[in-house]
Each structure stands twice: as C-alpha cells, then as structure tokens.
C-alpha cells in the first residue's frame, strides 16, 4: 500500500513558486514566527520593545515589498495565488491599516500599562483575576497573534484557489478569536465576545467549506478560473454551482459582517479590547471584501445575472439593519458596529456594478473607511472613567467643553462616515454610487436614503458632544501615548486629505483595478 502511495507521490511535480511575489506574505509569516520565539526567549522587560520592533518592522517591510510589486500581474503556485493589481491594493491597505492598529495595541499610557490583559484564561471574578486587574503585569503575545492574522488577511484576497482561501480564512480567524478575549476591563464581556465569535465563526467556516465541496462536485476543481470555465461550458445542472456559491458567500459575508450574517458584530465589537475592535473593523473587513471581490469577479463573472439579485438583497438588508438598528443603540462601540454593517452594505452597492469602476471604487471606499473607523475606535480609548473606557452615549455629553480637540476629531470622523463633502467618506460614497448607477440606479437611491437615516446617529453623537451639558461625574480624557497619537493623527489626516485631494489614491485604485483569472 505504502509503495503505491509513494509511486503516486513521485508523479506530483512541485509547483513553481514566485517567491518575490509572495514576499509580503512570507515576511509577515516569518516575523510572526520570530515573534513567538522572542516571547519564549527574551526576558519580560525587553519583550515589549522587541515585539514592537519586530511587528512594525515586518509590516512596514511588507508594505514596501507590496509597493515594489506594483504592476505585477501573475499567478503562482499552480495558479493558486493571483498577485495582481486588485490583490496588491487590498494587501497594501490591510498592511497600512494593520500598522495603525498595532500602534493602537501598543498603547501604554491610558490604562494601567496596557488595554490588553496579561492572562486571558483566568476565571472572571476569581481572586487571581481580581489581582490581575490591578497588577502592572503585561504579556505581549498579542503582537505575534496580530501578525498571524495579518498573514491570513494577505493570503485571503489573493487566493484564486478556494481551498487556499479557506486556509487563509482560518489563519486570519483563529488569532482574532483569541484577541477578542484579551480585554483588560470588562473581562466577562470580552470572554463572551471571544466565545461567540469563535462559535459563529466556526459555523461560517463550515458553510464555506461545504460550499467549496459542492463547487468541486460541479467543476471538478477548486480553482476560480476553472469554476468560471465550467460554468460557461458545462451542460450539467447548475444546482451545485448556485448552492455552492450561496454557501461560499455565507462564509464570506459573515467575515465581512454583512446582514443577515451580522449578528456577532455588535457583541464582538463591544466586548473586544478596543484596539482589537479597530483591527477587526478595518483590516478584517478589507480582507473579506477583497475575497468577495475575487470570488464574484473572477469565479462567477459570467453568472452575474444570477447572483446580482442576491447581492442586491444582501446590500439592502445590510444598509437597513445598520442604519435602523444603529438608531436604538446607546453604546458608542455598538453604534460604530452598526455603522460598519451599514457601510458594508454601501460597499456591496459598488460590487454590484461588476465593472472596473466598481472594483476601484470598492477599493477606495474600504481604504478610506478603514482609516476613519480605526481612528474613531482609537478615540474611544481616550475617554475613560474608573471602570475603563466610557462608551455609553450619556457619558460623552458635553465632551467638547472638556476636550475640544477630541470632540472636533470625532466630529470630523463621524462627518466622514455620514458622507458630508470635504471628507474622504463623501468621495468614497460618490465613487461607489457613481459606479453602480448604470446597473442599479434604484439601489443607489435606496443607499442614499439609508445614508440619511444613518446620519441621524452620527449627528446624535455630535449633538451630545457639542450642545449638551456635561454630566456631573463625567469621564476624564486620558492623554494618549505616542503610538496612539500617531495612529489617531494618521487616521484623521487620511480622512481629511483624501476628502480634499483624492486624486492620487483614485489614480492608484484605477490603475490597480484588475484581477487575473
């Protein structure tokens, strides 16, 4: 038996690997491994600085290598990975935003040493846990975990092979499940978030895998281009194809936090440590949209008339859920979570366009939205009371009196999310809606109506901050450390600058708007 297998194995030729095209992924994965080693080898006092250097250094190096790869358009590893303009743009966005997220994770000034707990597995409320809450002990595993997640996010949007895409999905998800449970304050909520995210995520992954199996049954391959070819030529019944695509989409829509697969979003966003929430809301979302773009544009391009109504429905559901349910929330993290659901719907409007413009508009949108939402979550870290972050809406009333700067920055970010002109959010919305207008004018009008509804809760925050009297025992504004300051500055700068001079990034997105099949 075994010699037969060996004989079979001899026939498999090793695929050619274009290592330079994989450089960004390899750099991040390598650094993640080095980070694990550093955690084991270095003395505790030196770990923080070392991990920060490894993490930021590798992310910057990967970003540079992505920039150097510009113009590449090839498939490698037997066509399993497609390094093309679209993929590189998404990779670059993920890397840029993960750098900012890591800066938030590195915050040391606002809480006792760090917003990240040292020992996440302790039973909540036990004596050891209470002791931990007061101790200045920190652990730095979060940095290698983040690097693994980023590595998964880099592979996810460039996989032309569904099995590889599944592996990437798991690589990016597993560290996130852990990171969600690492909050220093409100431990129970954080553990609940982690468990919820893990269980629902596992279901979604199972759906995804089932979809891959059905598609394999239909096309005899898990490569997207071959599935496309099979859909064009096959005389078989299309049931497997559509059911397979539907199941595949369930998994992807779950990761992107799109209704009706959004129910984890508010709870997980609320429970996770805020820097991790920021990371999930920006990087995970971008990677997931990158994968959705690739699946729909490369694998199911010709069956668009069949899936487009589904994406319409999902987009409308997502915008409606995000805009309407967001109105009833009283916690800022949950409001931003619902806002992210609504924004996912707007992004889907661009995907419906199924054109070069649609592709570049989606890429532009996710980038700008990522920066705004990242900075907004970063700001939440600064407004604190004795229990940690003060995220209840009432605690933010009259904030402008205490800190005009924080209130002004938050207002700019919220205006961008609401799509007010002279912010990046407006340009993104305009671009997406313009791209979709040809094929989906009614959808665009609905999207505009939902943006108006969503604007209500953004404005409510502004009203509270500027027009209301501050409460008597209100929260205090913490002075952020250097890393958070840099992250916030970057987020706001991108939001404002891309609102006024968007042309360079628009050019970049237009140039990058192609996917190889």
């Amino acid at each position: 038996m075994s010699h037969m297998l060996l004989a079979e194995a001899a026939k498999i030729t090793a695929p050619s690997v274009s290592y330079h095209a994989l450089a960004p992924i390899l750099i991040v994965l390598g650094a993640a491994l080095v980070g694990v080693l550093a955690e084991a080898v270095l003395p505790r006092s030196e770990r923080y600085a070392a991990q920060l250097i490894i993490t930021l250094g590798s992310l910057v190096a990967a970003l540079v290598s992505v920039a150097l790869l510009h113009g590449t358009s090839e498939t490698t590893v037997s066509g399993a990975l497609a390094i093309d303009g679209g993929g590189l743009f998404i990779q670059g966005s993920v890397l840029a935003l993960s750098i900012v997220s890591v800066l938030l994770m590195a915050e040391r000034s606002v809480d006792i040493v760090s917003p990240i707990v040292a020992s996440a597995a302790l039973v909540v409320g036990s004596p050891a846990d209470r002791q931990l809450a007061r101790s200045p002990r920190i652990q730095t595993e979060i940095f290698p975990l983040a690097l693994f997640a980023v590595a998964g996010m880099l592979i996810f949007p460039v996989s032309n092979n569904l099995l590889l895409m599944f592996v990437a999905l798991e690589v990016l998800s597993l560290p996130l499940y852990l990171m969600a449970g690492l909050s220093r304050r409100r431990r129970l909520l954080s553990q609940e978030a982690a468990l919820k995210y893990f269980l629902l995520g596992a279901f979604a992954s199972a759906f995804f895998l089932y979809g891959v199996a059905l598609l394999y049954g239909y096309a005899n391959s898990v490569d997207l281009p071959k599935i496309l070819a099979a859909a064009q030529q096959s005389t078989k019944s299309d049931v497997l194809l559509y059911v397979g695509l539907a199941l595949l989409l369930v998994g992807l829509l779950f990761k992107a936090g799109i209704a009706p697969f959004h129910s984890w979003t508010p709870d997980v966003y609320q429970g996770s440590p805020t820097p991790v929430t920021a990371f999930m809301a920006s990087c995970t979302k971008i990677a997931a949209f990158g994968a959705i773009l690739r699946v729909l544009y490369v694998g199911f391009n010709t069956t668009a008339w069949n899936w487009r109504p589904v994406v319409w429905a999902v987009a409308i559901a997502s915008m409606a859920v995000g805009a309407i349910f967001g109105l009833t929330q009283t916690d800022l993290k949950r409001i931003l979570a619902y806002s992210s659901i609504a924004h996912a719907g707007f992004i889907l409007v661009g995907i419906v366009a199924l054109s070069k413009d649609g592709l570049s508009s989606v890429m532009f949108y996710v980038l700008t939205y990522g920066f705004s939402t990242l900075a907004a979550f970063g700001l939440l870290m600064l407004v604190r009371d004795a229990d940690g972050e003060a995220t209840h809406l009432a605690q933010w009333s009259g904030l402008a009196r205490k800190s005009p700067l924080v209130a002004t920055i938050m207002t700019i970010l919220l205006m961008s999310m609401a799509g007010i002109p002279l912010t990046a959010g407006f340009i993104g919305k305009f671009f997406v809606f313009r791209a979709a207008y040809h094929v989906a004018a009614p959808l665009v009008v609905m999207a505009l109506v939902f943006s108006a509804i969503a604007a209500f809760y953004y404005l409510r925050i502004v009203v509270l901050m500027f027009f209301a009297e501050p409460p008597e025992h209100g929260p205090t504004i913490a002075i952020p450390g250097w890393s958070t300051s840099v992250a916030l500055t970057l987020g706001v700068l991108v939001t404002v600058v891309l609102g006024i001079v968007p042309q360079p990034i628009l050019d970049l997105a237009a140039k990058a708007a192609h996917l190889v099949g």
Partner: protein
Amino acid sequence: MSHDWTLVALVLIPLVGSILVFSLKEAQAKLAKQISLAVSLIVVVYTAVVGFRFDTGPNAARFQFQGSWTWIRAFGVHLAFGVDGIALVLVGMSVLLVPAVILASWNSLDSRAGSEEAPTPTGHRRSVKNYFALLLLLEFFMIGVFTATDVFLFYVFFEAMLVPMYFIIGIFGGPRRQYAAMKFFLYSLIGGLLMLASVIGLYVTTGSRSFAITDLIGRVPDTATQKWLFLGFFIACAINAPLVPFHTWLPDAGAEAPAGGAALLVGVLDKVGTFGFLRYCLPLFPAASRWFAPTVLILSVIGILYAAFLAIGQRDMKRLVAYTSVAHFGFIGLGIFAFTTQGGTGAVLYMVNHGLSTGALFIVVGLLIARGKSRNVDDYGGAAKVTPILAGLFLLAGLSALALPGMSTFVSEFLVLVGTFTRHKGLAILATTGIILAAIYVLYLYQRTFQGAVSEKVLKFRDLNAREILSVAPLLALIVFLGVYPKPVLDIINPAIKDTLTNVHQTDPAPTLGTAVGGVK
C-alpha cells in the same frame, strides 16, 4: 480654460479670516471680533470692485471672471468659479449681511446685557471667538455656493455649508437648540442626498466627462429621465428654500438660532434653494421644469397664504419672522416658475431684497429680544416711547417686509406679480391677497410690541447705541435706495434671466390689453 483668480480670492478671504480667528485664544475675544469685522468689510469692498467691473453690455458673456482648475480628474470635477448677474447680486447681498450680523452680535455672547438668553444654570460661557470664526466660515461657503459653476463643486458647498450653520444653531442657539439644529441638519441632508443622486444621474445619463454647468445644459434629452433628475434637485432646493410643504424646519431653526445666525440662515442660506431652481433646475431640465411648473406655482401660492396666516397667529417673534419668510419664498417660487422675464428678474431682485429686509428684521428683533430676554410678543408693549430709534428702525424693516411702495421690496413683488399675471391670472390674483396679509402680520407685530401702554419691563430698556444703529441702518438705506432706483441691479440681473429662459425655451407672452404694464427696461 481660463484661470481668472478674481473669484478664487473672493472665496478665500473669509476662509483665511476664519482660520485666523479660530486660531486665536479665548481671551482674545475682542481681537477676534475686530478681525472678523475687518475681514467681512474687506470682502464687501472687494465684492463692490468686482461688481463695478462686471460687464452688463449687450455683448457681455453670461459668466464672467471665470476661472477653472482641475480638482478630481477621475470624476471630471473642476474648481470652477464664475458669476452671472444672478450670482453677482446674491453674493453682494450675502457679503453685505455678514458685517451687519457681526456688528449686531458684537456683545450678544459675552455680556449679559447684550445676550438674548438668560445665562445657563451652570454659568457656562460660550466661546465668543468660535462664533465669529463660524460666521466667517459660513461666509466662505456662501460665496462658494453662489460662484461655483461646476455642479459637483456646487453640491460640495451646498452640503458643507450646513456644518457651520448647524454649529451656530446648536452651540449658540436658544433653549431648544439641540432639536432645532438636528431638524435643520437632517432635513437639509436628506434633500442634499437626493440631489447627490441626481448629480450622479446627471453625470451618467449625459455621458459628459465634466461637471461644468455649461457642459451639461441641454444634454439630458429624455423627458422621463429629466423628471427624475429634476425631482432630486428640486426637492433639495425646495427644502432649502423652503417651499411648503417642506418648510417645517425653518420656524424651529429660525427661532432657536441666535438672531445673527437666523439672519444669515433665512437671508442667505435659504436663497441657495431658490438660486438652485434658477441656476440648475430650469436650464438642466427644461422639459421637466415646464412639466412641474403648475405644481410648483400652486405650492408657491399655498405657501404665500398659509405661511402668512400662521405668521399672524405667532406670539414668538422669531418664529413670526421665519413664517413671513416662508410666505416670501412663495413669491420667489412664483416668479421663477412663471417663466417670464419680469417674473424671473423680479424673483432675483426679491431674493436680494428679502435677504436684506429679513436680515434687518431678524437683527432688530434680536436687538429687542436682547433687551427683554423673551421672544414672546406679550412681554412687550409701548416700547416706542422708551426706545424711539429701535422702534423707527423696526418699523422700517417691517415696512420693507410688507413691500410698501418706495421700498425695493415693492419693486420686486410688483415685478413678480406682473410676470405671473401675464401667464397665470388666477394665481397672481390669489398671491396679491398675500400683500394684505403681510400688512396685517407686520403692523400687528409692531402694534403689540411698540405701541400701546408702556409695560413696566419695557421702561428699563435702553435705546440703540451707535454700533447697533450702524449694523442695520445701511441695510435699510440700501432697501430704500433700491426702491427708488433699482435700475443698476435690474441691469445686472436681466441678461442672465433672459439666458435662463432661453434654456427653458420660453419667451415672454406678447403683451395684451390685460398686461398693459410697462415691463422692466
């Protein structure tokens, strides 16, 4: 493509001033006021120079001082500025109001004597320099919105303009300011987003690679498409104007905004709506405009009568003035959608006059409220004996609002009614009764506040000081001047209106015996 910097400089002066004032310290409130006033006066002088250089000759181009720079190449968006007669007179009116408002609000925030409201329980003082910086920022957007000749740029200014106004109402307004600011912003935002849908639709359906207004006129051939796109622009402008039934935000916003803010809100911001009708709705969608005209005319007449009745019944003085404005917008809508030169010219002159007259009215009402600390009419009475100067100016502003002959408002109202009568006799007659109602609400207001027995509270009032007189007297003087000699302004407006009507394919009906009025020459 021309690169005339004239208008760019005009737009940028207030912006620079605003940034300068924002960057001052709270303790430098006095300096902030002085800088703001100086900047606003520089803008007035600069605008006057531009106005004198504006060519009104028979061969003059419609848009002058045009300058255009590429902004977002991917969308075909330009930073394009230019003025025609309509835009020029509206810019002139706007920049005149700003120094008046600055002068009138000089002490309204820092000294209790000048404040309109009782101090807040926490004793919190509102930031003085931010108020003046916001006023200048608003001026920047106002000039931008009138001078933009690129539809996208117009939209950007149209929406961005809401932000400073929102803060002016929300931070510096009356007790229900949160509600009013929110309502104002949401109404305008919904309108704005509908307009955005139309802007995108315009771009897609015309296949034009540019948003320049001159590239888009006459490019939407299909009437059905025109109707949809028209609705987007129309609803946005109708909310902004505000036309009945989209008006309900104005009384709240007008009442809660500080008097200076209210003067700019009703005087200028709302003109953007009617300006939008003339500049965008009519030329871009001529067939749709003709199709919708009867509806708009009827809504306008309803607005004139309905709002006038509501104004008569108001006890809150600022709400009253806000309702009178809704009625006046009815006249403007009537003039625009009558599609006659007299009507159109009258409507534009009406916009200018109304800006000046309502601005003046809000300022004098604000001055009265600052003395009595109440917006309620019943708290006053017999004030004319104590404060004769205030009473005189109040009466003058009031008379200009009711379009007394000799005031410029009379000229415009007359032109609008004549222009409407040549096409729609019934509507013109109905609208004319609005004049009588106007006399009732203005005189009734004056009578209740300034005539009759002197109430005890009123006895302590002090009359206007030189600064306060200076804030409103020039506006009233201009109203009287234009009432006697409106020709210079009419000469500027007329060619642009004729051009607009050509776009809508409308010519004036031949004069008949029924319309034996000289017309405007």
